[in-house]
C-alpha cells in the first residue's frame, strides 16, 4: 500500500492501513548516536569540573531535553510523521509538564520555607 494513493471507494480500511515506510538511511541514526554519547561525556566532565550550582543544574536539564528531542525526533521517527501526529504527541507533554513542574517545585519550596525557615 502507498500513502500516495488516489481515493478509491472501499480501498481504505482504518484497522489495516499501513503507510508505505521508506528508509532514510543510517547516516542520521549514527550521527544521533554520537551526539547522545558526546552529550553524556560532556555531562560527566561538567559534573567533576564545575562546582554544584543552580546554573550547573540548569545545564544538565537543558542537555537532558536536547537528548530527549533527538531520541523522539530521530530514533522514534517523529520528525518524519504527519504534522498533526507530531503536535498531538508534543503539545500535551510540553503544556502539562511545564505547568506541573512549575507548580510542584514551587510548592516544595514553600514546604521547605514553612518547615525549616
Amino acid at each position: 500500500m502507498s500513502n500516495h494513493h488516489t481515493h478509491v471507494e472501499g480501498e481504505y480500511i482504518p484497522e489495516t492501513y499501513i503507510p508505505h515506510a521508506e528508509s532514510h538511511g543510517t547516516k542520521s541514526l549514527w550521527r544521533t548516536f554520537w551526539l547522545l554519547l558526546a552529550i553524556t561525556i560532556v555531562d560527566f566532565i561538567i559534573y567533576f569540573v564545575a562546582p554544584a550550582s543552580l546554573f550547573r543544574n540548569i545545564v544538565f536539564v537543558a542537555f537532558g531535553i536536547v537528548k530527549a528531542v533527538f531520541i523522539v525526533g530521530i530514533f522514534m521517527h517523529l520528525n518524519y510523521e504527519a504534522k498533526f501526529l507530531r503536535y498531538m504527541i508534543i503539545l500535551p507533554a510540553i503544556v502539562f509538564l511545564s505547568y506541573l513542574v512549575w507548580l510542584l517545585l514551587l510548592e516544595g519550596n514553600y514546604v521547605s520555607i514553612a518547615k525549616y525557615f
Partner: protein
Amino acid sequence: MALFRNCLDFLDFIPLFRKVKSKLATLILMSNSATVSSSSIWAGGRSPFNVSYGKLMMWIFLLSDAFTFSSLLVGYGAIRFSYAGSSTPWPEPANVFNHFPFMHGMHLPLLFVSLMTFILIFSSVTMVLAVEAGHRNSKKEVSNYMILTILGGLAFLGCQAWEWTQFIHEGGRLSHNNFGLTSEALAKANALGFGDHVHWEAADRVPGPVPFASLFFIVTGFHGFHVLSGVVINIIIWLNVVRGTYERRGHYEMVEKVGLYWHFVDLVWVFVFTFYYLI
C-alpha cells in the same frame, strides 16, 4: 454514506470555503498535498495522521506512560525541594552512588551509571538500525540488530541489579535509609577526589530522608520493569522475525512499534540519569 461525506460540497461555490478546505487539506496531509483535490479530503477514506492504527495507539500509550514517569519525577523534585534547609538534608548522589564493579572501596561517582547510559543508548541505536533494515525487508539484518538490542537490554538489567544490590547492602530500604552523613563525615566526603579510597564507619552514617531511598526503588524499579518487559517483547518479536512472520506479511511494522517502546525506555532513562545522578 457518500451523501453525508460530501454534504458540505454544495458550499463550494463560495471562494473562501474552497480556500479553507484546501488549507485544511494541506494541514492534514503533509504528503503530496498539492495534488489532492479538496473534495477527496472531505470524502473520508484517509488516515489523517498518515499512520497505522497500531502505531497511533502505541504513541498514545507512550504519551500516557510519559505522564506516569513525569509524575514520579516531578513528585521527586517537589519532595527534594521540600528538604532544603532540613537538618537531615537530601544526600549528595556522589556520596551514595560511587561504586564500580571490581573497584572496591574507591570513590567513583557517576562512572557506573554513565556506563549504563552508554549501554542503553547503544541498544537504542541497534534497535533503530533494526527498524531501518525492516524498511528494506532485510530479514537477516533485522534479526541481527534485534539480538544486539536484546543483549543490550539484558546488560542494562544486570547493571541495575548490581546497583540495587549495592544500594540495599549500604542500608537503602523502602521505608528507611542511612545515607545521611554527620557533619564531620560530610566534610571528609566533600574533600574526596575521583578514585580516592573511601570507607564509612557506622558512626559516620545517620538516617537520611525516607523518600530518597523509597523513590529510588520506585522510579528505577518502574523503569527497570519497563526495560524487562521491553526485552521480553523484543524476544517475542525477534522470534517472529526469525520465523518469517513479517516476511510473509510483507512489512516489518511490528519491529517499528516495539522500537518506539524501546526508545521510550531510553528517553525515560535520560531523565532518571539527570535527576537522580547528576543533580
